[in-house]
């Protein structure tokens, strides 16, 4: 990998530079087929109208909005709590190949896709909302918890405990080491859960996204801003109200305050599994003969060539452009929030902006930009780049703040940025970026629901036509590609020796 290491007197690019240049080149090629048109004749008029709404935020139906706010928080609380318990037990068995595979699959499917599937089974019910968060998050928790335990060095001390039962051993040797990491990761995931819960409203569940969408489609920007500000307030005050001691009370309140659970229709569930998701040619087939197989092949082939392939192509094109746009934006943003470059008053402005940008779910951003610019790839790229760029920019800004320069290093900010800071944080930057690669792919696929021709578009259409067999096939294909990207990303990270801790 390190062609540059053999005694070299001629200039060669290092492996990291090669990877970076290739990714940028690929993104530039992807720009050729990409559609970046702005459709409305005067998008900026709508844009200024939108931003003028921030001056007088107001809500028409306050009790309804409050109800949705309570639901958003309850879904997130219950979904995340459930998944962290399930994820924890799965993490204890994460060395089993089957557990790893199941976890990889459930987290490769976006929570909105889970919600769309669950809607068919449970309808617009609390169960749909909670499970849509709990299922993919369980897979994430299982993976992250097992990684945390792996890194805690538990195994090395295992031999100190002779004749101790496994529960005590676990409580005394492992828990103290990993408790803090578990807690901070679970808290972070709860913040993600709030975002996921809010966007579930866009597909009809009773959370903030529901009223946000209707306010937006009516051009009622005062209400949009009021809802957004409530959402930012909820997330930014998380540290104040999310206390361990209050958690049981919150959970009980969440259950009490949830909308009434509709009775589960077992006929519905049975029909879903025995009929809806069974590939069309197999339904009602008495025996599996050659003609059924031929039909099945045709069924698969026509979905694959007419829907999956164009969907995959557009999703990958958009992912590539968004990934590189995220990278460039993060490199631009991080010095603005780093104490190595700017002092307090100037830095605070950017810090607040970055908090707002990373608190806004990309789906919500994309929805808003689509309303303003029309259904091209542009709103999707901007939404993904802005959200993810703000996350990576924030992390890099914080890490770069701890770097030490030589007393005689250049006083110019540009020189410091290019020679002292970027080379030192570049490995970490690539690690963060590749870590978010699969997340960006998943988001890109989802944005199809908004009308961009990625995989989500075909999945959403299939569901609307009540062709669940087709929808499930497309979701499985999406998940497999997502797992593929995760594998490539992990290879790249290990080959380039990238890790998330600072390398100086």
């Amino acid at each position, binding site marked *: 990998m390190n062609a*540059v290491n053999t005694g070299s007197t001629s200039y060669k690019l290092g492996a990291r530079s090669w990877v970076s240049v290739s990714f940028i080149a690929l993104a530039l090629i992807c720009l050729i087929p990409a559609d970046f048109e702005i459709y409305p004749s005067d998008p900026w008029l709508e844009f200024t109208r939108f931003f003028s709404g921030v001056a007088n935020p107001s809500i028409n139906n306050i009790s309804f909005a409050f109800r949705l706010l309570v639901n958003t928080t309850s879904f997130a609380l219950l979904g995340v709590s459930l998944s962290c318990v399930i994820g924890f037990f799965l993490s204890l068995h994460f060395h089993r190949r089957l557990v790893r595979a199941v976890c990889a699959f459930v987290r490769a499917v976006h929570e909105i896709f889970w919600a769309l599937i669950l809607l068919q089974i449970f309808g617009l019910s609390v169960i749909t909302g909670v499970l849509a968060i709990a299922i993919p998050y369980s897979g994430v928790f299982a993976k992250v918890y097992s990684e945390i335990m792996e890194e805690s060095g538990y195994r090395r001390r295992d031999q100190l405990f002779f004749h101790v039962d496994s529960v005590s051993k676990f409580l005394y040797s492992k828990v103290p080491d990993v408790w803090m990491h578990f807690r901070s990761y679970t808290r972070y995931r709860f913040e993600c859960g709030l975002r996921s819960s809010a966007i579930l409203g866009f597909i009809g569940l009773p959370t903030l996204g529901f009223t946000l969408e209707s306010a937006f489609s009516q051009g009622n920007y005062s209400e949009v801003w009021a809802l957004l500000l409530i959402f930012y307030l909820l997330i930014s005050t998380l540290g104040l109200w999310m206390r361990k001691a209050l958690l049981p009370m919150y959970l009980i309140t969440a259950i009490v305050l949830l909308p009434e659970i509709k009775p589960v229709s077992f006929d519905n569930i049975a029909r879903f599994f025995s009929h809806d998701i069974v590939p069309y040619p197999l339904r009602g087939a008495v025996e599996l003969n050659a003609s059924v197989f031929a039909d099945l092949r045709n069924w698969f082939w026509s979905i694959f060539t007419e829907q999956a392939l164009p969907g995959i192509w557009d999703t990958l094109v958009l992912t590539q452009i968004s990934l590189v746009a995220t990278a460039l934006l993060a490199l631009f943003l991080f010095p603005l929030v780093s104490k190595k470059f700017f002092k307090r008053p100037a830095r605070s402005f950017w810090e607040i902006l970055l908090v707002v940008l990373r608190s806004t779910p990309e789906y919500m951003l994309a929805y808003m930009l689509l309303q303003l610019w029309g259904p091209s790839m542009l709103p999707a790229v901007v939404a993904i780049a802005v959200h993810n760029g703000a996350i990576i920019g924030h992390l890099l800004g914080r890490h770069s703040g701890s770097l030490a320069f030589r007393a005689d290093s250049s006083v110019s900010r540009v020189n410091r940025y290019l020679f002292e800071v970027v080379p030192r944080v570049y490995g970490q930057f690539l690690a963060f970026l590749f870590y978010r690669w699969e997340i960006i792919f998943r988001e890109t696929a989802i944005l199809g629901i908004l009308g961009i021709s990625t995989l989500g578009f075909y999945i959403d259409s299939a569901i609307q036509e009540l062709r669940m067999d087709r929808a499930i096939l497309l979701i499985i294909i999406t998940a497999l590609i997502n797992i593929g990207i995760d594998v490539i990303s992990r290879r790249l990270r290990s080959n380039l020796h990238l890790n998330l801790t600072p390398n100086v």
Partner: protein
Amino acid sequence: MATLFTFKEESAAYGDKTVLSNFSFSIETGEKVALIGKSGSGKSTLLSLMQKQQTAGCALIPQDLGLVASLSSFHNTFMGKLDQHSRTYNFVNLVYPLSEEKRLVTELHRSLNLNDKLFVPVGELSGGEQQRVAIARALYAQRDILLGDEPVSSLDEHQSCDILNTIVTTHNTVVLALHDVDHALDYADRVIGLSNGSIALDSPACDLNRVDLIGLYQND
């Protein structure tokens, strides 16, 4: 002769701990000074105070080298001159090294016995090679004053002598923290000895011998 560094009844602290109290001395242009004393006696602290008095004119060789591990030895050396070029020039040279800079750096590296390592990331070099890159960066800056903190600690005797000789002949004023008393006597014309939180000795090198200096390391 102009005075470059002056200390008048000052105290110096490393973190919360006072390492030197109530000391006074000054250094004039053209002097070659060696600072000696046990580790922890305040040599590094003193050097960083001097650096603050002459920010613009000093080239530094710090003890921790301060190199950027992921950049090549070429780029780390070139960094000595960043403030002497435009941003555009620096940017181009970062992305695609210019032939003139390559020539100059290669020449300098050759004089420091750093052959064939021009585009190797500094993190992959040996300790001695890294120290020579840090020295190259200081020399490349072509300043009048050089402040070095144990600049040859990882090098063999032969290389050390060559490099100390280069340092004192190419800089007008030199202040070096050294632990090797022979180096101090051979290459400095003034020796300042630190001991027990104060300046125990400050004399022209020609008036001193090994025994005077070794004494600094023995008493407590």
